[in-house]
Each structure stands twice: as structure tokens, then as C-alpha cells.
């Protein structure tokens, strides 16, 4: 059952991500990206990380990609405009190079004596990937500072800087 779920989610994810970069209309490719984020969220559930799966849907599909959608609606691109994105000779070279690199790396990974060997998953405790485990590593417990508390504070400063710079950049006169 888990193998079937993995292949279902993986093939769906690769298909929707592929259509997201191939489709000409940016609106269609954003919607394809949203579907692929739901597949990624299913993969997180398969890897027993339920909190991350919820965050993936709420923050990524719900906030970031909807922001992309709003920006595309602001642009009001016409069909004759975005159809101008044509393939060139350089693109064939880059497709070949990327395909070569990806096939080499995948062949390295899926062979039996690879760097990431065929380790089966051990069963984990109920705490793994839960909100409680996240809170312990982010905020600490009972007077002890958490392992990642400093990085958490740095991220909050980064988000503040991003808010301020977005407001400044979006002003009428720069």
C-alpha cells in the first residue's frame, strides 16, 4: 500500500511540476504548481511528518502561490504577449545537459551499493514530526533554550526585513 502511494504521489508530482515549467500561460502553470504542492504534502505524510504537510498546504499553496496568482492578475498579460516565449537552439543544449546530469545522479542513487543504501525505515515514536517535537527544537523546554532557537530568531528578523523591503519596493516612486 505504501509503495503504491509513493509511486502515485511521485508520478503525479513529477507530472504536475513538468507541466508547470512547460505551459505557456503563467496562470495555468501556477495552478499546476498548487496541485504539485498537494502531492508533496502527501509525500510528507508518507514520511511521517504531519505538521510539515499541513504547513506545506497552508503556507506554500495557500499563501505563496496565491501571492503569485495576484501578481499575475496585476500584470494583465495578453495572450499574444506570453506566447512569445519560444524555444531556441540553446534550450536543446540545456535540456540535453540537464537530462545527462539527472540520469547520472539517479543512476548513482538507485544502484544497490550507492551512497544512500537501501535502508528500510524503522518505526518511529509518536513524537516524530509532531507539533510538540517542533516546539521543543524551536523554543526549548522547561528553562532550557531550544537547539534551533537562534536560527528561529534570525528567520524572524529576515521576515521583517522582507516585509519592509517589499513595502518600499512596491511604492509608486522608488
Amino acid at each position: 500500500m505504501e509503495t503504491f502511494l509513493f509511486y502515485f504521489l511521485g508520478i503525479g508530482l513529477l507530472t504536475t511540476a513538468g507541466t508547470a515549467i512547460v505551459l505557456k500561460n503563467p496562470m495555468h502553470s501556477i495552478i499546476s504548481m498548487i496541485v504539485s504542492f498537494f502531492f508533496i504534502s502527501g509525500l510528507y505524510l508518507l514520511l511521517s511528518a504531519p505538521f510539515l504537510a499541513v504547513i506545506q498546504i497552508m503556507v506554500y499553496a495557500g499563501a505563496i502561490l496565491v501571492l503569485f496568482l495576484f501578481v499575475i492578475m496585476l500584470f494583465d498579460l495578453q495572450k499574444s504577449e506570453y506566447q512569445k516565449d519560444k524555444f531556441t537552439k540553446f534550450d536543446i543544449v540545456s535540456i540535453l545537459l540537464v537530462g545527462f546530469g539527472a540520469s547520472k545522479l539517479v543512476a548513482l542513487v538507485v544502484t544497490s551499493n550507492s551512497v544512500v543504501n537501501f535502508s528500510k525505515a524503522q518505526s518511529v515514536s509518536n513524537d516524530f514530526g509532531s507539533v510538540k517535537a517542533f516546539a521543543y527544537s524551536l523554543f526549548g523546554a522547561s528553562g532550557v533554550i531550544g537547539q534551533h532557537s537562534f536560527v528561529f530568531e534570525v528567520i524572524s528578523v529576515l521576515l521583517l526585513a522582507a516585509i519592509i523591503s517589499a513595502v518600499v519596493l512596491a511604492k509608486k516612486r522608488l
Partner: protein
Amino acid sequence: MVSLNLFIALGIVLFFIGLLGVLIRRNIIIIMISIEIMLNAINIMLVAFNRYKFIENNDGLTYSFFIIAVAAAEASVGLAILIAVYRKRKTVFVNKLNTMSN
């Protein structure tokens, strides 16, 4: 249960799809979406390594959480820059936005 190799292979293929999107497309919105695809591929690989190799701690999950936060900041600033550029130049194609190179 699926072995670790398949998750890592999936992450690698997804990362290269994102790289291909950056290389072959001229539309700057699609280039930013491809960057998001690459960040998600790294997230999948981090979570898979955490689940299979280091189950006694939560570090991979915590770092993918941080990557999501950084991606949100990056998307907001990138889109603000994009709006400012579009207001000035009226185009979203990177091959028309090359005034710095010539």
C-alpha cells in the same frame, strides 16, 4: 515501506526539473516558480534523510521548516521587484531586460 533511494531519486529529478525551468524559460514568473520547485525538492530530500537515518532527532524537519520561511521572504521580495520592473519596462521577459549587459 519504500527505501530511501527512491525518495532521494525523486528529489533529484524534481530539482533538475526546476533547473531546466530556469534555463529554458524567458518568462520571469515561471523562473521564480522553478526556484520554488528546487526548494521543494531539497525539502523532500531533507525530510527523507531525517526519517530514514536520524530518527532520534528532528533537525531535518526543522530545517525544511526554515527553508519554507526563507522561501516566503524570497517570494515576497522577488515579486515586489518584479512589479517595480514591470511598471517601468512593461515586459516580463528576461531577454528584453538586459540593459545592464549592453
